[in-house]
């Protein structure tokens, strides 16, 4: 498995764990699937938990000023953010 598809799979698992999406909903996420503002589960406490879990599982550090609607708008946005942080071009 390449690191890129591994990141995709890890992020789906993480969203499923934190938001309780269930594997069917997590697997069905596409790059355009809305996250923040689209999923009622994702309130500020859940976002805080999600970011902490992302830092832990992907071994990256996310600064306050990197967190905004662009980064969390869609599944594709969040995946691109994590890939950039991990140096996956």
């Amino acid at each position, binding site marked *: 498995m390449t690191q890129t598809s591994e990141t995709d799979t890890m992020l789906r698992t993480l969203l499923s*764990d934190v938001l*309780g999406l269930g594997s069917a909903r997590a697997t069905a996420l596409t790059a355009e699937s809305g996250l923040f503002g689209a999923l009622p589960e994702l309130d*500020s406490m859940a976002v805080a938990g999600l970011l902490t879990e992302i830092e*832990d599982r992907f071994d990256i550090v996310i600064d306050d000023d990197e*967190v905004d609607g662009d980064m969390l708008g869609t599944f594709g946005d969040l995946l691109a953010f994590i890939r950039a942080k991990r140096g996956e071009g």
Partner: protein
Amino acid sequence: MPATWPCPGPAGIGDELAVVFDRARAVRLLIVPPLFEEMNRTRRMLIETQRGLDGLGVDSILPDLPGCNESPQAFSAQSLGSWRDGMAAAARHFAATHVLAVRGGALVFPTRLPGWVLEPAKGAAILRQLLRARTLSAREAGLEENSADLLEAGRNHGLELAGYRLSAALVAGLDAAVPQDEGQRVIRQSELGGSPLWLRSEPGEDPAQSAALARIIAAEASA
């Protein structure tokens, strides 16, 4: 079943509650719960684990951390030190032979006891998540706060985070604390199957995880 135990506090010794399954058996497990919201999210799972342990011949005690759950003490008076003192007092009172510390419980459990830590959490990570929840909700309300300034203020004067009034000692303690395990075995979520219940705001139930945890502890305690 609920039981009380004498816990030190700012006004002297007072009673705190614990959920106990006590039939005076040889293995007596003290369960030190996670901190903050994760405590509530894991409560059913841990009590279900106690039922499983009871069936497997193991006594268990799940005490309230002082200032939390049903405790008569004020949350704002607590620190990692007061939680460590409380858990040590509970271990003595109930004559615990083993300990299971869960998540942030690994920062405050009695390290002299043999046992297990389940997915131990660093204090700084717990604090970071609370700070983040506050800055995010401030931003939604059109205010600009940043974690570094809040942390500095909190270390000096205490801080309100996610509905909890943290003392200055608790903020400073969390910022520096790492899990205290010394020879206790680390249990990972993958050994229990399923996904971690403490991550979700509505954790639901997963009896299979509690059963797996009880089996691991009962088997290893008697090994």
